[in-house]
């Protein structure tokens, strides 16, 4: 850009351009004003009944009380008038107030002698006589931040993220003995693992997304998470490859990218586990965690696959392992203590975008290797083996 020496006619030209830009905007304002002035073009747009929506973002069970974190996703302010638990009208308090503005939040606290493992249906009735229900499948005390709760969540994150990733990486010496074909197969396997993880993450993201109130456009949020993350990782990868171009460095970078992608995915996974634990759903089975450990071993495999022909330092291996596994811990913290459906949706989508991008990177690497001696069936069977491996280990989780 050159800003020096603007001539008067240039200024006039710019003003004209600005006017051209503003002209439709002014017209738009006029059209909206006309629409409002004519009472919605003569259509009576008053709804027959008040449109009210409410989303239960988080349910916290503490000793002798149930805490509902609600968000008003309707067009107007709503007012919580009464509450019922298990077909019983109960007293409650609402902070900051019973009146919740559009997109505003409130915490409704209901003193109630809930019992471990029982199911509860909670209903909130608004001043316009609209009823909203939330369900607790199996009540258990919500872990609170600090103390044993914090330690517990850290341990779960450690179990499902860090340990399996490092265990998977212990295959490193074994993998080094493999021939070229086996190596290609292994890379293809990694692609399969990642694709499966990505598809699964999209599904989970969408599941949470459907539950967001319509103003939050859950599916759009999933799209933003996936596209944004994938393009960002792509941009980051390209930005680096311009500096050092040798093959070894590239493969190391890919290993780092795989680890980062898997790490982001594990963050989303940890979030899901954390929030499930905090609302007592995961109390339905520790089998769940065992399943995750089995599945995530394969992630360690994926991280070391690109660098199996190299001699990475232990420090490097520890670094990529931590990058891939440790975010699960952060995920369980967020999920357990601060998760909202919006955050969950976004993190799951980010994880999906990350693993898709990494699968694409490894795919490119495979294609490059393909140039010398194509092995289409090796690639196919590798990808399939990866996806099936995830499917079978997934049987334990779902």
């Amino acid at each position, binding site marked *: 850009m050159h800003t020096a020496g603007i001539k008067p006619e240039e200024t006039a030209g710019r003003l004209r351009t600005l006017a051209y830009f503003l002209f439709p905007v002014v017209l738009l304002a006029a059209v909206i004003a006309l629409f409002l002035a004519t009472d919605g073009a003569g259509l009576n747009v008053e709804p027959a009944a008040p449109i009210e929506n409410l989303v239960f973002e988080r349910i916290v069970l*503490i*000793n*002798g*009380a149930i805490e509902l974190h609600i*968000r008003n996703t309707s067009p107007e302010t709503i*007012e919580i*008038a*009464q509450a*019922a638990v298990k*077909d*019983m*009208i*109960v*007293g*409650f*308090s609402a902070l*900051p*107030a*019973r*009146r*919740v*503005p*559009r*997109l*505003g*939040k*409130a915490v409704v*606290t209901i*003193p*109630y*002698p809930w019992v471990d493992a029982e199911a509860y249906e909670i*209903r909130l*009735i*608004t*001043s*316009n*006589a*609209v*009823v909203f229900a939330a369900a607790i499948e199996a009540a258990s005390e919500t872990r609170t931040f600090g103390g044993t709760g914090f330690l517990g969540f850290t341990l779960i994150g450690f179990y499902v993220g860090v340990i399996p990733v490092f265990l998977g990486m212990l295959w490193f010496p074994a993998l080094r003995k493999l021939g070229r074909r086996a190596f290609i197969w292994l890379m293809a396997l990694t692609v399969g693992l990642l694709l499966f993880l990505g598809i699964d993450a999209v599904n989970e993201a969408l599941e949470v997304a459907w539950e967001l109130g319509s103003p939050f456009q859950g599916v759009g949020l999933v799209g*933003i998470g996936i596209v*944004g993350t994938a*393009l*960002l990782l792509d*941009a*980051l990868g*390209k*930005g680096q490859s*311009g500096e050092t171009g040798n093959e070894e460095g590239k493969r190391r970078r890919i290993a780092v990218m795989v680890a980062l992608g898997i790490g982001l995915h594990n963050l989303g996974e940890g979030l899901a586990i954390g929030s499930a634990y905090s609302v007592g759903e995961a109390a339905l089975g520790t089998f769940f965690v065992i399943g995750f450990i089995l599945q995530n071993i394969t992630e360690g495999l994926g991280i070391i696959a690109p660098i199996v022909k190299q001699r990475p330092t232990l420090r490097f291996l520890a670094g990529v392992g931590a990058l891939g596994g440790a975010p699960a811990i952060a995920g369980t913290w967020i999920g357990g203590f*601060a998760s*909202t459906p*919006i*955050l969950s949706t*976004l993190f799951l989508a980010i994880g999906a975008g990350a693993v898709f991008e990494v699968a694409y990177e490894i795919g490119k690497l495979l294609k490059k290797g393909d140039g010398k001696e194509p092995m289409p069936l090796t690639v196919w069977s590798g990808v399939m083996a990866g996806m099936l491996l995830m499917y079978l280990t997934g049987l334990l989780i779902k």
Partner: protein
Amino acid sequence: MNGKMKTIAYPAFFCSFLILLSCGVEPKQEHAESGMGQTMSHTVAVAGSAEMAFMPGFRGEVDTVANGFDPMSILTDFDYGRVSTLPDGRTLREYELRAEIKQLEVAPGIMYEAWTYNGRVPAPTLRATEGDRLLIRFVNASPHPHTVHFHTIHPAGMDGVFEPVPPGGSFTYEFDAVPFGVHPYHCHVMPLASHISRGLYGAIIIDPKQGRPKADHEFVMVMSGLDLDFDEANDLYAVNFIPFYYDRHPIKIKTNALVRIYLVNMLEFDQSNSFHLHANFFNYYPTGTFLVAGEYTDTIAQMQAQRGILEFTYTYPGLYMFHAHKTEFAELGWTGLFEVEE
């Protein structure tokens, strides 16, 4: 933008987006509790405190002035009609019923569009003596067709079934007061469940010619439900329409006084209703059509439109519950108290 700027700008955009989402739109602090429901101090103190007896019920009050009727006065509000004597010496009683829509605060803070006779639910308790000639002029001041269907003995044309009264129209029901007892009346226009549960129901008491033993207290109680969200399931239950009203405002009676309750079940959607009296037994006269009690008990059940008369006295002073013994109904509003005083 060059490559470096892009790599910075993108995460920056993303982070700000995240922060925006996690903060959400914080509602402004509002302390106006507008007199609905319980106050803050109550519930804050209550969380985890052993002092909190986990009793169901509202902490707020409905605005009976704005509603235009008070469940306490409905208990004893009997409409004997405009009385005159016919040429044959019989008593003529003339009543007015007017169907109208009314926004009512049915529970503290909850507004509901009720369909009413004379602006109140339950409708006026019409009262006559066996054999009287009844003339009930019905005006429909609502935007829907309605009728009045009495559970008494009368000609087909007076049944409130085949002669729906259009908005703005009127109809006069004319029949003899038979048989004696307590009977419901309600609108009989389809869809019936909606017309009834919206509030178009009440009781008619026909006293036997020879009368009943003199009672110290006579109360009418109509049991019903409230389907707030129109999903064919009741969200709240009540006796005389306002849930928990007599729980918050105990009905005062005297020890050793004869209490007579005219009990009618107009509950829609649920199979049956019940009445349980605490720490006491009552004589139960099903439909009130015999002067001899059919049962001596503390709990009775009534299907839709079933009704009966309860008679009892309390020996000891104190607070006594009465409620549906279907606990769900009781905890969702069908609970009341008698305050027995010396």
